[in-house]
């Protein structure tokens, strides 16, 4: 590690002096030939934002470095990236999934340590937690954004039906009942076909209120809590009631179906992640609102899932390490944070620099950070390192529970048994 650090230091020193030179206009041409960076990413939806906004902003500041954004589809990203890294043809910059997937890449020597990257100082320990070695010494990805869960609703529909924003569980189901009774709208737009919707927008969305956010999550990791405890079964008991409020044939409804159902104005409530904001703004011709996952009883403290979702690191074998570090430092800057957050409202910056968001819906989501306690998704850190994989099993269990093919207690027991089969706290 020491040698790597030394090399890195020399490299960044070299980079700084090179940039200094190119700023003087002495070796810009030579430099330009050498520094072409490719970014590996799963965010193919963001292609045009990178091409039109982010990369031009960087290249304007750093002439001589050319950046290409080369995304693949989310479902294939891990497989494609791992194959390319193993064979040595991966890009210079690697978009990082949170926690173990990226940690494994670092442990195998594919991601470089960023311990000496000056820009890392702009992030809190919480922000860095998703991309750091277990001993906390070596961060390996610059945190880019987190996503917040909640519910997005059709304001026009709520006004039409005389509904107010639900704050408690009871309010929530009363509102759903009223929408269902009235009949013009499908109460809630979600399907179980893709499974992850049920787990991510269902279980991880409402769950933190029951397991008390970080307290429960850490309890699970240190073994003081079990998935069969009441606070972990309770969200499943809630989900079991959801099936009745979803659209006909929701069992075969896919994720794009759910999005379309809502943006076409046919459903009133959408269990959401904040990343939906951009797409919904573009496609919905009614007013959008958002509310916090309802708490069990009025006055209870609220917890939200504010999940560190996306970071960016450097390929340890990159031939343009200096340019890559320049780019990463820029990603850590206030300029990038503001650019990214406003180009993609709903992906909230993680840096300490205050960022002004322009989108009202994004403002609503981020305002919850003040009101509620933040946590990350319960299955992501450590608990999905083994097989059966807790995250994947949670997808399956959440879908089963909503459909009523497995009882909440059975599902919880199956998950706990699966976890206990390989995880010893």
């Amino acid at each position, binding site marked *: 590690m020491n040698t790597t650090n030394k090399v890195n230091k020399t490299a960044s020193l070299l980079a700084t002096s090179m940039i200094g030179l190119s700023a003087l206009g002495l070796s810009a041409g030579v430099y330009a030939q050498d520094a072409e960076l490719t970014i590996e990413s799963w965010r193919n939806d963001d292609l045009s934002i990178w091409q039109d906004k982010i990369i031009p902003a960087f290249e304007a500041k750093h002439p001589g470095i050319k950046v290409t954004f080369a995304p693949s589809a989310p*479902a*294939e990203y891990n497989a494609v990236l791992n194959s390319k890294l193993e064979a040595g*043809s991966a890009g210079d910059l690697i978009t990082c999934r949170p926690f173990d997937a990226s940690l494994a890449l670092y442990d195998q020597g594919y991601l470089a340590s960023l311990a000496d990257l000056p820009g890392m100082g702009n992030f809190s320990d919480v922000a860095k937690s998703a991309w750091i070695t277990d001993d906390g010494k070596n961060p390996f990805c610059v945190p880019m954004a987190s996503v917040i869960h909640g519910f997005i609703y059709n304001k026009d529909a709520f006004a039409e039906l005389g509904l107010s924003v639900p704050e408690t569980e009871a309010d929530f189901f009363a509102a759903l009942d009223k929408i269902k009774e009235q009949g013009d709208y499908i109460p809630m737009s979600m399907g179980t076909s893709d499974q992850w919707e049920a787990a991510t927008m269902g279980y991880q969305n409402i769950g933190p209120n029951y397991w008390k956010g970080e307290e429960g999550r850490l309890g699970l990791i240190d073994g003081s809590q079990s998935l069969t405890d009441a606070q972990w079964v309770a969200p499943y008991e809630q989900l079991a009631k959801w099936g009745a409020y979803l659209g006909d044939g929701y069992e075969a409804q896919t994720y794009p179906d759910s999005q379309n159902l809502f943006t076409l104005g046919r459903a009133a409530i959408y269990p959401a992640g904040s990343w939906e904001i951009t797409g919904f703004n573009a496609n919905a011709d009614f007013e959008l609102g958002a509310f916090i996952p309802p708490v069990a009883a009025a006055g209870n403290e609220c917890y939200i899932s504010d999940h560190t979702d996306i970071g960016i690191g450097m390929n340890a074998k990159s031939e343009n390490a200096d340019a890559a570090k320049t780019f990463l430092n820029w990603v850590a800057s206030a300029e990038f944070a503001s650019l990214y957050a406003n180009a993609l409202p709903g992906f909230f910056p993680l840096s300490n620099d205050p960022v002004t968001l322009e989108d009202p819906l994004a403002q609503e989501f981020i305002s919850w950070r003040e009101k509620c306690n933040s946590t990350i998704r319960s299955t992501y850190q450590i608990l999905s390192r083994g097989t059966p994989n807790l995250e994947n099993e949670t997808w399956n269990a959440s879908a089963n529970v909503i459909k009523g093919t497995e009882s909440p207690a059975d599902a919880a027991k199956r998950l706990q048994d699966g976890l206990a089969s390989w995880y010893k706290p």
Partner: protein
Amino acid sequence: MSTVRNSISNSVASHAVLLLYTFIALFPVVLIVINSFKTRKAIFRSPLSPPNEETFSTVGYETVMKQGDFILYFQNSLIVTVVSIFFVLLFGAMAAFALSEYRFKGNTLMGLYLALGIMIPIRLGTVSILQLMVATGLVNTLTALILVYTAQGLPLAIFILSEFMHQVSKDLKDAGRIDGLSEYRIFYRLVMPLVRPALATVAIFTMIPIWNDLWFPLILAPAEATKTVTLGSQVFIGQFVTDWNAVLAALSMAIVPVLLLYIIFSRQLISGLTAGAVK
């Protein structure tokens, strides 16, 4: 009298079955194409109706064309597909001829060895293949794709072609030998023309997975200059896509070229088939 009526009712029944099946086969394709020319609302409101003045829209195509150079992608796909088919047919037919024509030590073993490839998905070898391409500097070239697809197409081609070559009349070949033709000429002049139907069939079987493959273009040649149509249109069919105008347009654009290619081949196929029948 009765046979005439019989044959009329037979042919009515035949047409009924074929029409029904043709409808089943084409309905989904037509659905994609007509909806790709409609506004988003109309796609959902009345998916079955063709576009009219009110609902006609090409917004999907505009989005797709903005995203990349589809003419170039199409050209790449075409080069990769055609060159791979050529090598698969040539090498495959040669090997199949050797296996079906000559008895030599290890014939059966060689046949089995060459058939192994249809029993394991080549995708499993991805990492080694990629390492090979990195080592030879072929990453992001069409050559890499052509090599992989040739290797991938060979086992099935050899398997099918050797079955057909078994059926070529022995007398004909022996007559050729008596006339002093070399083995190469016998292969090229006598046998190849006779297995034309099989060659056309293999060509089509080989073409489909190559044209439609997403995996190897993604891994071996993802660069802008070497993107294939399937990879280019895949940008619109990710997990987070709701722009159905763009998806449907991209799908239509991926269908039409391969459809044309198939129709061209299918003429060859028909003449090949008839030539085989008349011998």
